């Protein structure tokens, strides 16, 4: 459980850096819609990740108390992806759709990179 929280904390740290970079890009470049889309996508992606961490905790608790295990919240995560796409399609003048989708997948890419770095360091 501790390891999962450590991964989540590292993710948060990296995402704050990314959000700061996107905010700078939004403020000082002409690609405002792209960076705004990335920010929205990253926020929704991080929300997805947070839901997963919370559900895994619940799952762990249910397992240790020998209760019926709850679901992992896949539907909620799908709905959050749906909401991100809806935001981008509703306000296309503010958010670039493709960058929202890319932003949505950034936490997963960071997770993969984090694990690769972890395995390289520990071998």
């Amino acid at each position, binding site marked *: *459980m*501790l*390891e*999962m929280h450590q*991964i989540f904390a590292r993710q948060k740290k990296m995402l704050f850096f990314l959000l700061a970079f996107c905010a700078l890009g939004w403020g000082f470049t002409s690609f405002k819609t792209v960076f705004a889309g990335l920010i929205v996508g990253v926020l929704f992606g991080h929300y*997805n*990740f947070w839901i*997963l*961490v919370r559900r*895994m905790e619940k799952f*762990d608790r249910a*397992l240790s108390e020998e209760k019926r295990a709850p679901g*992992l919240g*896949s539907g909620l*995560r*799908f709905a959050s*992806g*749906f909401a*991100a*796409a*809806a935001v981008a*399609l509703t306000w296309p003048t503010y958010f670039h*759709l493709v960058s929202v*989708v890319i932003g*949505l*997948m950034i936490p*997963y890419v960071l*997770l*993969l990179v984090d*694990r690769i770095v972890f395995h390289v360091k520990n071998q």
Partner: protein
Amino acid sequence: MGLLAAAIAVGLGALGAGIGNGLIVSRTVEGIARQPEARGVLQTTMFIGVALVEALPIIAVVIAFIVMNKG
């Protein structure tokens, strides 16, 4: 036609995610039952597995939504 495409995309994506998640969770619970001391490692692996398995269906849902709105 757009609706049909969206339904197929979401349906197949969710089917894949369901099978993948089911396999991951069942093997993890089995592993914890066999070796309770390896619980932390197994749960971290399960967490990463579930996160990566669900990335593709989320993309499928997003694409389905876009197709549904443009079709």
